[in-house]
């Protein structure tokens, strides 16, 4: 593959519009790629970290408050937030547990169900795809409406309000995950490279063999595309559905409750926790994706 001054592999063409650019590029071309890779990696990490530190400084010194026009009551200092987290760790953990169970549970159940639905849609393509398209209309209904409906529908499931709420919340999370996964799984099963089906046919392969050896592996990248949407969505759904649930537990609920009681510092503590949950889960997803899809072309 031909490269050169215009290093296409790092990013699209760097256009030289003046002599200065050209001189720099000539020098770099002679120095070789090794240096450039290091400099690039450094920049990728350094810049955002510096920016983050800048924001933190502005925050702690209350300059941020002046910019946004707010006060330390509604936007507490970072130090205070950390303190609150440390002081209330067990309580916070309890709520985190509740939220994570709902989010992850809904995610797994919903994704598995979605995958199965994708299989069904693949087996009956005419009807399947129409069904999935209709189902995707469900995602247009805002969570705010779905959550209460499900709450009411599951009222009689159990006598324990805790269990009832868990069920309702998990169902809400499942809806987005199922639809997203079903659509992507269907595409993964059916968007095959040209002639790969013909190849299988030439080996007189059975439908099951074609499914296991061709369609399933082909669907894995699509599965992860769906998960990239489902994972953050499941967390948001879990948090929002907690607002409407009967039983008062969960990170999202605590955010709401704290604000209603004007305990802003606690609210921010929970917000930070919510962000961390999101980041950790997404990081796990990325690592898993890297492991499962190892070696494949992007």
């Amino acid at each position, binding site marked *: 593959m031909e490269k050169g*001054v215009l290093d296409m592999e790092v990013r699209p063409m760097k256009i030289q519009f003046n002599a200065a650019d050209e001189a720099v590029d*000539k020098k770099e071309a002679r120095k070789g790629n090794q240096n450039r890779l290091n400099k690039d990696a450094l920049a990728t990490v350094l810049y955002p970290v510096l920016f983050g530190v800048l924001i933190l400084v502005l925050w702690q010194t209350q300059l941020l408050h002046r910019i946004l026009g707010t006060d330390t009551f509604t936007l507490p200092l970072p130090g205070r937030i950390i303190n609150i987290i440390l002081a209330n760790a067990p309580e916070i953990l309890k709520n985190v547990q509740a939220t994570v169970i709902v989010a992850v549970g809904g995610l797994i159940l919903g994704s598995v169900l979605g995958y199965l639905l994708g299989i069904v849609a693949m087996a009956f393509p005419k009807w399947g795809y129409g069904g999935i398209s209709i189902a995707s209309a469900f995602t247009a209904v805002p969570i705010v409406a779905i959550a209460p409906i499900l709450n009411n529908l599951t009222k009689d499931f159990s006598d324990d309000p805790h269990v009832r709420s868990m069920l309702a919340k998990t169902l809400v999370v499942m809806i987005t995950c199922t639809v997203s996964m079903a659509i992507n799984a269907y595409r993964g099963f059916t968007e095959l490279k040209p002639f790969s089906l013909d190849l299988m046919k030439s080996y007189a392969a059975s439908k099951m063999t074609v499914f296991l050896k061709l369609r399933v592996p082909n669907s894995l990248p699509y599965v992860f595309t769906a998960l990239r949407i489902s994972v953050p969505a499941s967390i948001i759904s879990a948090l929002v559905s907690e607002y409407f649930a009967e039983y008062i537990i969960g990170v999202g609920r605590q955010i709401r409750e704290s604000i209603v009681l004007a305990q802003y510092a606690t609210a921010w503590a929970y917000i930070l926790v919510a962000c961390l949950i999101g980041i950790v889960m997404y990081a796990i997803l990325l690592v898993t994706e890297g492991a499962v899809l190892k070696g494949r072309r992007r």
Partner: protein
Amino acid sequence: MLRTRKAIMDYGKDIVSETEEFNAGIVIKNLSVQFPDKNGGEPVEALRNINLEIKPGEFVSLVGPSGCGKTTLLRTIADLQQPTTGSISIGGLTPREVRLQQKFGIVFQNPVLYEWRTVRRNVCMPMEIMGIPKPERTRRVTQMLELVGLYHFGKKHPHELSGGMQQRVGIARALALRPKILLMDEPFSALDEFTKEKLHLDLQRIWSKTRKTIIFVTHSIQEAVFLSDKVVVLSPHPGRVSAVVEIDLPRPRGLEIKDTAEFNALVSRVRNSFEGV
């Protein structure tokens, strides 16, 4: 037909009246291009010690298998690639100077037309950048489209045209700036045989009237021998000039020339000049 001929004559007249050096010769001395190896190993020698002289108005083909450096050579001439050592002089100017003067015409293998512009506006695009005023632009676009035989397709969008027609638009666009030299990187490889043959004849006609210096990269020996005055044979590892074969077949050349003994003798000569394949 008549319209096209008139367009070509007008184009020729424009060229002469514009400037003395409407096309340029190329002198390449001791050119070497090395690519640093990504993993820090030995650098890849794409071209080693190329010496070449191309007269103004010559049609020159660069032929060779993949990896022989023909595209690299073309890109270095076009200032899309920097040489490691050596020099290139185009009508007395460095490639960079020619590029900044906006005197290059390039046709890629993929026509790369803008989907959101009509054919006319696609041909217009380089002239807009050069700042040529609107009436002149319109005149030239019409001239170019007539030259490549696409006058009636001006208002169409690229996706409405076939591959061969898109490539003709690409050629029209390249010629619109009155370039000093025309660089073509395997422009017809993606087309079928029939379209290719027609485009060969078209290109030959355009060249014979406009007399541009053309550097034509291809991997097809037949194509090179049919079109050019001179075929430069490149061999890989490292990229070097194995031979320069003069093609003295009479012009204009029709398709029937491919059946003659002289033609096939030249093709054999070129083929036997490859080293290390």
